[in-house]
């Protein structure tokens, strides 16, 4: 196939109205230079032989035919795009979390993951918020920024936060009672180490700014008389 047109190339045959081009078929023939292609090829359009089909392995007849015709689900080719970030959200912004366990905490934004969620950290030492994913809607972006250029975030993605797939236990009678006791969920050590590495860099940048550490350890709350629609974050 001919290589893709360079970016910025418009169609040679602009639409007058939808479905009606500006140039007629014969005009387009000339515009596209088909006469030149023909001339180059001895008066005929060049023919491309079909690629030899790969020898098909004879398909085995299936062992099992379903009794009823099973409808195939329609193909879904939708691709997931990460949510568009608000202009106020840039890496290093300090967020106020609006909901959930860490409601009211001020945290540092690290990066947006491919699922669209925002990766955020307290840092843990400062306010107890670990590396966590947060939705953009549940966050207020303040105008305070922290320098996170020294932090390596390559290894964090949505996979990192997925739950460990629980192995299915085959329950025998005796094991029924044992299975009731769930193991206490302990955070694996490598995740703790990741937290420490990320935070080490961050805390240096935070301590460089006056009062930023106390700011991050304090919780945000609305006091009497504070009107959120009049607050400037």
């Amino acid at each position, binding site marked *: 196939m001919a290589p893709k047109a360079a970016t910025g190339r418009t169609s040679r045959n602009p639409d007058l109205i939808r479905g009606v081009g500006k140039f007629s078929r014969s005009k387009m023939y000339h515009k596209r230079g088909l006469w030149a292609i023909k001339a180059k090829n001895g008066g005929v359009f060049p023919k491309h032989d079909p690629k030899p089909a790969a020898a098909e392995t004879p398909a085995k007849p299936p062992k099992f035919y379903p009794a009823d015709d099973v409808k195939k689900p329609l193909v879904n080719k939708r691709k997931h795009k990460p949510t568009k970030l608000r202009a106020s959200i840039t890496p290093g912004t300090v967020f106020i979390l609006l909901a959930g366990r860490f409601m009211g905490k001020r945290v540092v934004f690290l990066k947006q993951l491919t699922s669209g969620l925002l990766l955020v950290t307290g840092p843990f030492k400062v306010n107890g918020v670990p590396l966590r994913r947060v939705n953009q809607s549940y966050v207020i972006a303040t105008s305070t920024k922290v320098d996170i250029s020294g932090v390596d975030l390559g290894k964090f993605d949505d996979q990192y936060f997925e739950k460990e797939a629980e192995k299915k236990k085959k329950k025998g009678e005796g094991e029924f009672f044992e299975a009731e006791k769930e193991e206490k969920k302990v955070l694996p050590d490598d995740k703790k180490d990741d937290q420490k590495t990320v935070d080490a860099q961050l805390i240096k940048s935070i301590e460089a700014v006056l009062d930023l550490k106390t700011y991050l350890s304090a919780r945000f709350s609305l006091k009497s008389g504070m009107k959120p629609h*009049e607050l400037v974050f």
Partner: protein
Amino acid sequence: MVKGHQGEGVRAMNLEILFNAITTLRSKSNQYPNTSLIHIEGVNTKEEVSWYCGKQWIALLLHLGQVPRPHGNSGVVRAKFKSNLPPKSMGDRVRVVMYPGNI
């Protein structure tokens, strides 16, 4: 566990400012109980209300709703709840939460 950490004073991510659920949407003789009118303290104009549009309500810990639009010029707001507010709650407090955030 969360309540243990925070006292009510700090927990004010919810706007505990007095919001009065004034009444249901109504004309003189007809009521439309699916929409309530809510007056937010400190909000007095239509423009100020636009900050709250899209935010969620929690009324009486039972009803969840949304702030869709202002009602008139003086900062009253129309709110729709998942199930209609009971008429007993006219005059009661209602809370607005700050999410979904848009700042």
